[in-house]
């Protein structure tokens, strides 16, 4: 069926003529694809290519008492077996490059494993088969620990700690709260005045991206003291920075080549293969390939994480939604990866594309003993949109209104204030609903058919709520740090700090240290990559009550916040 383009919608608003849309255009990479010559990472041949395979955890959660690699080392073709201690800087969190979060994940686990498939050793051998045979000879003495696989069980006080950096199994936002908050207006007062209160519980299972090409990388020594790395990554510079950090090398010694990706869908940003392949190359001096096989791709490759949502709406008899309250749990799996960021995106998106005057959300990034989650197409949005739209249908049924008309009635219109305090513009939900109804032969009222995103928005609908109820629910202690999410940046000033306008005081120069003494006892020690302690003044003593410095730090947090979540003017 030919695609029909509705260029008439908003035609008076646009200055583009969309000449390219609706016309066939040749992709620049199509010739390579149909001839089989597009250079995927595994299409680079090297003499003497070595292969890396990992010994992986068979347990959801276990402490590593010891690892015996002696028999494996004697296997034919084995060049080297890497353990956690062989990784120069064996602790990272993916978004540390954005100063977001605390390093919480080893490249190769050396103390404990927190999900099935977590690597504890990597064999480098002359053939893939030899590497696999040697992996089978590695003996690990496990002390199996109790595990937790459900987000709501994981946040209970009696749950086992999944990730030692976050003892309560929740990511800590802004160094202050165990969840990401949205407060807009007063939902409880609105519920009391609403004609109906509609509640729902929704959840989404993890979803594997399942690219046809499995994740991987090949690294080889170059002749100029650099390492070339061919990779399937979707995020070339992100992977480069991550590899440089984990391997403690200057990034200009790493030469990354990518861009031809055999399907990614978000699952190729975790940057685990590049540092492993480069490390294998560094220790053997040989070209080294590290790739997931299909079983690893499905079991160990990070999926879109599971989510569970509780949604509560206050609705008037005429269908107007006057309050919406969310409690959400993202299943981050054993480590943070990108889930903390997904939640920032998610909360910015709430309450969906509707103008609702009172909105409340508590969204938790929860650690469980499941495979760490990562990006996938619209992550942070997809799961909650499923919950919101399923809930809209439930509201329509409760109030007795057509579900399409309910959406048109409550949709954002241009000029409306959104719950994250930005004015809506270029809104088009109403038009989408109208076209969908027309195409599917779904009858809607004349009033709904005549509604427009361009009319009747703004005015009173542009006003912030007269009063927003705030609270300190979920306040946590011990995570004060300089980073946006309480990240441990040690003595390294962040890029933002170079531009801060508030005069620095001695106590805050350089970047204030996280108050280690107030941190959880089992928090990991400072990273080896930090400058020697003598080069920085001692950190300020941990304060129990907010003082001027901390207040200023908090101001700075909010400024960092704007750099990540996009509060800058659009």
């Amino acid at each position: 069926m030919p695609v029909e383009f509705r260029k008439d919608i908003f035609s008076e608003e646009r200055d583009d003529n969309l000449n390219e849309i609706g016309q066939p255009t040749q992709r620049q990479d199509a010739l390579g694809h149909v001839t089989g010559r597009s250079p995927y990472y595994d299409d680079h041949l090297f003499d003497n290519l070595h292969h890396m395979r990992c010994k992986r955890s068979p347990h959801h959660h276990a402490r590593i008492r010891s690892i015996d690699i002696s028999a494996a080392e004697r296997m034919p073709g084995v060049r080297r077996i890497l353990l956690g201690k062989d990784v120069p800087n064996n602790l990272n969190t993916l978004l540390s490059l954005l100063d977001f979060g605390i390093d919480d994940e080893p490249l190769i686990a050396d103390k404990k494993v927190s999900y099935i498939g977590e690597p504890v050793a990597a064999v480098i051998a002359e053939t893939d088969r030899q590497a696999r045979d040697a992996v089978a000879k590695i003996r690990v003495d496990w002390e199996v620990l109790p595990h937790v696989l459900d987000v709501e069980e994981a946040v209970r006080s009696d749950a086992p700690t999944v990730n030692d950096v976050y003892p309560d199994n929740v990511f800590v936002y802004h160094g202050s709260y165990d969840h990401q908050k949205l407060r807009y207006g007063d939902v409880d007062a609105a519920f009391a005045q609403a004609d109906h209160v509609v509640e729902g519980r929704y959840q989404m299972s993890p979803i594997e991206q399942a690219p046809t090409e499995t994740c991987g990388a090949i690294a080889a020594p170059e002749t100029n003291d650099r390492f070339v790395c061919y990779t399937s990554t979707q995020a070339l510079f992100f992977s480069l920075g991550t590899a440089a950090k984990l391997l403690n090398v200057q990034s200009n010694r790493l030469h990354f080549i990518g861009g031809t990706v055999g399907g990614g869908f978000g699952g190729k940003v975790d940057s685990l293969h590049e540092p492993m392949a480069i490390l294998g190359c560094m220790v053997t001096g040989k070209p080294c390939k590290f790739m997931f096989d299909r079983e690893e791709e499905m079991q160990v490759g990070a999926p879109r994480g599971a989510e569970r949502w509780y949604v509560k709406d206050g609705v008037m008899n005429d269908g107007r939604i006057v309050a919406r309250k969310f409690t959400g749990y993202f299943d981050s799996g054993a480590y943070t990866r990108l889930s903390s960021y997904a939640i920032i995106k998610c909360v910015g998106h709430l309450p969906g594309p509707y103008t609702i005057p009172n909105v409340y959300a508590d969204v938790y990034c929860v650690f469980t003993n499941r495979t760490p989650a990562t990006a996938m197409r619209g992550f942070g949005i997809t799961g909650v949109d499923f919950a919101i739209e399923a809930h809209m249908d439930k509201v329509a049924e409760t109030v007795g209104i057509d579900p399409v008309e309910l959406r048109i009635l409550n949709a954002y219109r241009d000029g409306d204030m959104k719950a994250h305090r930005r004015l809506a513009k270029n809104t088009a939900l109403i038009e989408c609903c109208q076209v969908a109804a027309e195409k599917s032969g779904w009858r809607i009222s004349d009033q709904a058919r005549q509604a427009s995103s361009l009319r009747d928005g703004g005015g009173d609908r542009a006003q912030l709520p007269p009063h927003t109820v705030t609270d300190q629910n979920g306040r946590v202690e011990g995570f004060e740090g300089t980073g946006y999410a309480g990240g441990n940046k040690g003595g390294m000033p962040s890029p933002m700090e170079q531009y801060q306008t508030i005069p620095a005081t001695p106590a805050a120069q350089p970047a204030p240290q996280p108050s280690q003494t107030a941190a959880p006892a089992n928090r990991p020690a400072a990273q080896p990559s930090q400058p020697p302690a003598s080069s920085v003044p001692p950190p300020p003593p941990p304060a129990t009550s907010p003082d001027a410095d901390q207040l200023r730090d908090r101001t700075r947090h909010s400024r960092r916040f704007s750099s990540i979540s996009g509060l800058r003017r659009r």
Partner: protein
Amino acid sequence: MTKKPVQFQLNGDQKATFVDDGQNLLDVLRRGVGDLTPKFGCAQGTCGTCTVLIDGQPHMSCLTLAETVEGKSVTTTAGLENGAELHPLQKAFMEQFAAQCGYCTPGMLMAAKALLDTNPNPTREEVVEAISGNICRCTGYEAIINAILSVAGNSPQRYGVR
């Protein structure tokens, strides 16, 4: 580990190489004789991206023992082009957006060629059946089916005899 000599025709050229016991054809094609057009997707016979023709029949090269192609004729995507000229299937895939990431494309092309070589005028259902062993994760099957149909039977880009 014993090495065995194997001789076969690859896209019309005679090839001779040594293979390990149990080595699969995909590995020998890619690493042994340097034809990188068949791709590794699963090594389990489920994704079809390693599909090649052995004596005209489609086979998953990842599940084919390399030594079994002794004396046989293997065709891969590298053998589709006629000099500088693309095969009609390649043209159709290129012009009709039947290759997004491109990773399943070599397998799809070989499955389609196997069909059209024996059944130049297939129905839509027969095309669907012919590529049912090939998984695509991003292009979408509709564009691929349409591209294959466009070079079948009496269509303007009629499937050329090769």
